[in-house]
Every structure is written in C-alpha cells, then in structure tokens.
C-alpha cells in the first residue's frame, strides 16, 4: 500500500520527477562506470603480464651512439653475456634483436617481424611450441626459423596448405628452414616489445643477414622475485656505466609499468568519482526540491491523514519512501547507463568487459542513501505540519 501509493504519486508528477532524476541517473551511472572501468583496466593490466609474469625487465639503448667514434659503446652481445654473471639478481638473461622481412608464400608475400633469439628467450617469453623446436646455439648463422602462430596461419591461407616443420620457405633473398611453429601467444607482453604471434624467431647470429649492425634491440631478463626493481635498475645503470662509459641505457621494469598503468586508471577513477558525487549532490538537491514542493502541494492530504490517525512517523515514512523510490528509479536507470558506458569503454579500448561485482550493489545503495539523505528533511517537514492548518489549506 505504501509502495503502491508512492509510485502513484511519482507517476502523477512525472515530468518534474524525471527532471530531478537526471542528476541521480548521471551520478549513479558515473559511479557504476567508474567501478567497471576500474575493473576492466585492472584486468587489462593483469592480462599484460599473465604470459610473462611481472618479474621481467627490459634493458634497451635509448639512442644510437656516434658511429664515427671508434671507441663508442653499444648494447651488444658481449655486454649481454657479461650481465648475467655480474648481477645475481638476474635469473635469466635473453638478448634479442629485430628486423623485418618479406616471407614468400607461393605467389604472395607477407611482411613479418624477425627476432634474433638465444635459447633463453623461449623461457623468458614463455612461448610454447606447437611443433618442432626452439632456436639453438648450435644453429649458428643457419636460417632455422621458429614461426609465430599468426605468421603460420597467414602462410597457410595464402598457399592453401599448412606450414610444417622442415618446410623451406623464401625469406627476402634467402631460404629459411622451419625449425618450429609456436602456439598462439596471449595478448600483451608486459615490458617486452616482442609480439610472438607475428614474429619469426631466428638464431641471433643468423639475424645479422637482415640487420648488419651489432646493436641489440634489447635485453630481457627475469628478476629474482625478491628483488627491488627500482634499486635493480639503478644497479644495472651503474654497472653499464662502469663497463661501457657513455652508453645510454634505460631499464623498464614490469613493476614500474604496472604502477604507471594503475596511476592512469586511478586518475580516471577519481575523475569519474568526482563527477558522480557532484551529480549525486545536484540530483539529491533536485529530489529535495521536488519533495518540498510535493509536501506543500499535498498539505491537505497530510492533514487528512493526520486527522484519521496517522502518526508523525507514518507521514515521515511515506515521504521518505517516495524520495527513496524516486532515487532508486534513477539508480536503476543510472546502473544500466553506467554499465553501458563501461561496455562501450571496453569495446573501444579493445579490452574484454569485466563486470565489477560490487558495482550495481553500490550504485543502488548510493542512490538509496541519496534518497534518504535528501528526502529526510522534506519528510520531516511533512510530519511536522499542524493538522488543522494542513486541513484548512486548499
């Protein structure tokens, strides 16, 4: 009866109600979008590191050193080989280099990334072989290639036959033997610039045919789980400076990347939270306003109810229920809208939508609380009306 009447009164004043609801809708939508976007971002960040783990760093040269300087230092294999033994915090060190080439497939070709790899890179990237083997030290400068899953499937589509281990394929002017084929690799490589699916891995010395200089693309290293990444980065920089003065290196750690990403998503969360709170306050004031108008307009009704035995608390409850129902209505619409925004966000950023489990619950309780907070004063006003004056008013 109480709920039925409250909804009837809301329907009877729908234009005004809808206007006041707008603030609640926007407020709740922001809160829900905020929570969902937070959870989408969080998941995206975790996804980035799922494949490789978070205890990986990448060391790279910031810019090329002067070629004309005979004494110049650069990030090369020699440096990479010395790094592991020098720093015990590094469990695994994998230098890599890269180039690009055309892979011939029948009459067609495809552009592929080439990554020069050592044996250690497989364990660092945690790539898995669908067939064949990984590159080996013993391959030397031979063109033995490990083919990424997308490259292999593109090749199969172009030639109408699957790529198999032992196949010999044309790579620019050379002929490469397929040593292995990789399983599809999960999206996101954390700090690694390598996308295994679109890459052919070659022995690092064989890559020299496509990329003549000695400068490496980078050195990936797995770090001891207890190591402090920031401190380690400084240690590496000092070590490089001692061994190869003037070599500009940069150490990217997963932890640092994670922190950056989290900060970005936190900024976004704070912004939406601020919009949400402001909208909720504006909406709440709107609700308060229409409830006060409603109390004034319905003075006679209040007088009648008091005359037939309603207690002050009954009147208060009636108007409070109405305010809360209004806000809840706004909350439900806002929850739908906010979820829609989050789904759109997930779509445009290319991340999977992950619903924040508490979002809808929180959105609904936030709108309910707004209703109670801003509906209480008008309800109190209603319950304090003098029944005689209320009855005499028309």
């Amino acid at each position, binding site marked *: *009866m109480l709920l039925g009447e409250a909804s009837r009164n809301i329907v009877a004043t729908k234009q005004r109600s809808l206007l006041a609801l707008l603030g609640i809708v926007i407020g709740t939508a922001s809160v829900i979008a905020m929570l969902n976007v937070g959870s989408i971002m969080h998941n995206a960040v975790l996804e980035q590191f799922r494949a490789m783990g978070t205890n990986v760093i990448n060391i790279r040269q910031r810019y090329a050193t002067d070629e004309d300087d005979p004494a110049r230092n650069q990030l090369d294999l020699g440096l990479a080989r010395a790094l592991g033994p020098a720093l015990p915090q590094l469990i695994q060190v994998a230098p890599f280099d890269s180039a690009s080439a055309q892979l011939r497939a029948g009459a067609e070709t495809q552009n592929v990334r080439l990554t020069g790899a050592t044996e250690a890179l497989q364990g660092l990237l945690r790539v898995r072989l669908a067939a064949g083997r990984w590159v080996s030290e013993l391959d030397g400068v031979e063109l033995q290639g490990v083919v990424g899953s997308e490259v292999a499937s593109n090749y199969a589509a172009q030639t109408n036959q699957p790529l198999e281990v032992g196949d010999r394929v044309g790579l620019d002017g050379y002929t490469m033997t397929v040593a292995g084929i990789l399983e599809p690799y999960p999206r996101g490589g954390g700090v690694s610039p390598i996308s295994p699916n679109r890459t052919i891995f070659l022995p690092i010395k064989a890559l020299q045919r496509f990329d003549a200089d000695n400068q490496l693309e980078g050195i990936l290293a797995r770090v001891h789980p207890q190591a402090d990444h920031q401190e380690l980065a400084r240690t590496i920089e000092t070590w490089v400076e001692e061994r190869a003065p003037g070599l500009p290196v940069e150490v990217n750690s997963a932890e640092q990347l994670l922190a950056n990403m989290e900060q970005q998503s936190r900024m976004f969360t704070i912004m939406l939270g601020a919009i949400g709170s402001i909208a909720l306050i504006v909406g709440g004031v709107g609700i308060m306003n229409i409830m006060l108008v409603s109390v004034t307009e319905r003075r006679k009704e209040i007088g009648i109810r008091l005359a037939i*035995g*309603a207690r*002050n*608390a009954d009147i208060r409850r009636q108007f409070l229920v109405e305010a809360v129902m209004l806000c809840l209505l706004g909350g439900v619409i806002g929850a739908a809208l906010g979820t829609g925004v989050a789904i759109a966000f997930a779509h445009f950023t290319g991340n999977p939508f992950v619903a924040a489990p508490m979002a809808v619950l929180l959105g609904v309780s936030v709108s309910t609380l707004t209703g109670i907070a801003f509906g209480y004063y008008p309800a109190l006003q209603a319950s304090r009306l003098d029944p005689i004056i209320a009855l005499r008013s028309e």
Partner: protein
Amino acid sequence: MSAAQPLVSLQDVHRSYRVGPTDVHVLRGVQLEIHRGELASLMGASGSGKSTLMNIIGMLERPSSGDFFFEGRDVLQLAPDALAHYRNQQIGFVFQTFHLLPRLTALDNVGLPLLYQDVSKREMRRRAREILGRVGMGDRVDHRPNELSGGQRQRVAIARALVGNPSVVLADEPTGALDSSVGREIMDLFHELNGEGVTVVIITHDPAIARECPRQLVIRDGVVAGPEQVPA
C-alpha cells in the same frame, strides 16, 4: 454526576488565537458532556467556534486551558502518538468538503484509517467493502472521488469515518455542500447509524436539521448552551 461515565467531558475549556498583537478569544469556558449513543447537533453563528470545538474534541487541536477527558482519560496528558492512536480508533471525522484523497479509489479511501493499524491489506479491503455497502455505495468501490457525485462522496467520507469502529463520529457541516434532497439522505444515514448505536455530533447551520437531533447544542459568546436557545 451521572451514573454512566461520559464519553467526552470538557471542563472550562478556553481557546484563543493570537492574531497580530491581539488575542482572539474563541472559546471562553466551555462545559460539555457527551454520552455514548447520543445524536447531538451543534449550531452557532459563523466564526463562533464550532469547528474549533470539534477539532478539540477530535484531538486535532489543544485547548489553551481547561480539561478534556475521553472515557475518563485525561487527553491533554497524552503524547502525540497516543493522540494519533485515539484519533484512529475512537474518532471518525466527516467534513463539509469531504476531504477524500483524489488519487485513491473509494475502497482505498475508506481503508485508509486501517492503514495506520495492524490490519492486513486483505482485511482492510474486506472491511472497507463491507462499510461501503452499509452506506449504500457497494456498487461504486472502484470509483475515484471525481467520478462520484457530492452525495456519493459524502457517503464514502462517512464510510471512512466508520471503518475503524469509532466511539464518536464528528461531522462538521456534512450537508453544507449538498443540495437539500441529498442532504436529507445523508441525515437519514446518520439517524440510521445512530440507531445502530454510533454516537454522532453534527455541526449545522440548518435549524431543521438541528431540531431533528435528540440533543441540540448552541455555541454563543464562547460557551455551549442547551437546547432552549435553538431558534424556532
């Protein structure tokens, strides 16, 4: 002192309103007893304080001074919630302009007093329907007030006053807004209810209506007088 305890007992009741700098002294020492089963009329010039007196008896308004006992209970000592409870259980109001809630059907209007009691919705509807039948409105339960004539609205309002089985029905000019034939029907209804034992007090400006009540009260100069002053 009479043997039976009076239902309503007012002693030296004063009521004044502050209007600007002056006090308007409306009731100046009202002495009044109403017993169970009575049918009384209350007359008086416009502004003489009839509605004020009615609102005091109905516990909507407090006297400025004096005593008010209801079935021997000192009403003026009751807390607001207890007063609401009394209004709900003991008093049935009928107003000149009906005072029905426009958005509710006749059935829900009549059931309203039961909303403030521990009565299930089903029971509420059952009793409202029964009372509506008793006042001759059994075939109009789902109508809203604006779909009813004045006389029909007043019947619904009387049904609402009766639904909680009150000790006394207070009617403030119940026929004032109705034409005379419809007013006649409403008066017949009050007589009928009184015949069934309901105590009724009717405020009226119509001497004919006043005269058909067994007890006739007149308010003049702020006090209630007996029947001898009723104009012929």
